[in-house]
């Protein structure tokens, strides 16, 4: 059965590109446009094996989203990769403290994204 990845990003085109890269590699993909929608998707989904999240989003930013995920009894073990244009050390430290497992800067290269996903995705 295909592993499921949740993509959380306010850019529709970016979500489409990440989805294209992941589905070509055999992953099933769910989408959300901000952290609030991401939490709703997690509650609805049967199982999510990995989350790829942007940092700067309306309604709920990525770091707040990760914090909520890691506080949730059912979702806290899902690994999170931050995929963002940000590269400031302070933000990276915040994400790490919130519980993210990796930080990948945009523009992403498909093989690099797939390598990171492959390393962290839950069995």
């Amino acid at each position, binding site marked *: 059965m295909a592993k499921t990845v949740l993509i959380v990003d306010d*850019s529709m*085109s*970016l979500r489409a*590109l990440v989805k*294209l*890269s992941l589905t070509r590699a055999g992953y099933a993909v769910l989408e959300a446009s901000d952290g609030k929608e991401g939490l709703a998707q997690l509650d609805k989904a049967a199982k999510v094996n990995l989350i790829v999240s942007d*940092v*700067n989003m309306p309604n709920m930013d990525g770091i707040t989203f990760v914090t909520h995920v890691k506080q949730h009894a059912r979702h806290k073990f899902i690994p999170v990769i931050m995929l*963002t*244009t*940000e*590269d400031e050390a302070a933000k*990276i430290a915040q994400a*790490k403290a919130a519980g*993210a*497992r*990796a*930080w*990948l*800067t*945009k*523009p*992403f*290269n*498909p*093989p*690099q994204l797939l*390598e*990171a996903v492959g*390393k962290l995705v839950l069995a």
Partner: protein
Amino acid sequence: MTIHLRWLDAALPTLAVACAAVPLFHGVGVPEVTAVVGVAAASIWAAFRSARVAANSAADCAQQAVDAEARLLARYRDELPPLLRGILPVWREHVESVRSQTDTAVGDLVVNFSAITEQFEAAGFKGTSDSLPSGQDTTISLLTLCERELQPVIASMTRITDSKGALAASVRELSVITGELQTMASEVAGIAAQTNLLAINAAIEAARVGEAGRGFAVIAKEIRSLSHASAKTANYITGRMAQIMTIMRNTSEAATQAAASDKIAIELSGTVVDDVLSHVRELSVEAQTMLGQGNVIRSNIEALIVSLQFQDRVSQVIGVVDKDMARLRDTIDSDEALPSSDQWLADLQAHYTMKEQRRGHGTSAGGRAAASSAAPATALFF
């Protein structure tokens, strides 16, 4: 007019008091009139005072409006230009960065799409047959050609198999006849043995001559029977031998013909197989080429995916500039003092999320050039 009003403002009260005081020093008549005039003057003064207050109030409002306008003019003349002189170049740099990134990304997209098209053509996906040069085969045509060329070979092999079957039947028939001959040979041998016995008996009988003739007559009869049987067997054997010769001759001819046909068929098969192998090798080379082109196409697609992400970056840059324009509009509309350009730009910089924006925050062309292409992705694992 203001001076006149002030004079009246000072004179009217004095006139009113003077008129009111006249009756104290004069008789009735003129003093009464004077008193009435005084009262009237006082009334007029009171009314005028009210009017003056109203006029002053209106004047104050007008003055406030004038002052506000003057302040606004002062803002636009004195405060806004320096602020705009600081902000506009930065906005311009961001907009130019967007233009440059879009231009570069679209150029990359065109190059990558062109490369993918070329790779597809090089891999053999050339589209409709109308576009093919005459005599050039597609992969599918090669396979059809191989199938057509192999069919005669299969037919030849079938014919060879059939002829070998006929030969085998002839050989089986020969084998049967040979068995019969062996049986006949045994019979002839038996006949010969009996003939010997008879001869021996005849010799014995001859030894007993005395009773001449009886024994020899019997012996002669038996020998005659044996002679007939031998002749009959000999004829039969001769006939069968003739059959065998015919069959052997036919078989030999058939075998010779089959050998000649086989030789031709085998040579033809060899040629066809070589041809087919050549096509298969061609197909194999094309398949390898397609595999290689496929890898190149995959790389081009991955490059496309990277290029297409420019939309996300320029969207963020434009979003920040758009919000800053709205902030300026709101600030101008409010009565707050306009901040300095340094303060404004410091607030703007706090909203940046990308290196390109921070580089473009400077107004140098070097910042713009650096902003035109995104930095390669980095990955950190915690």
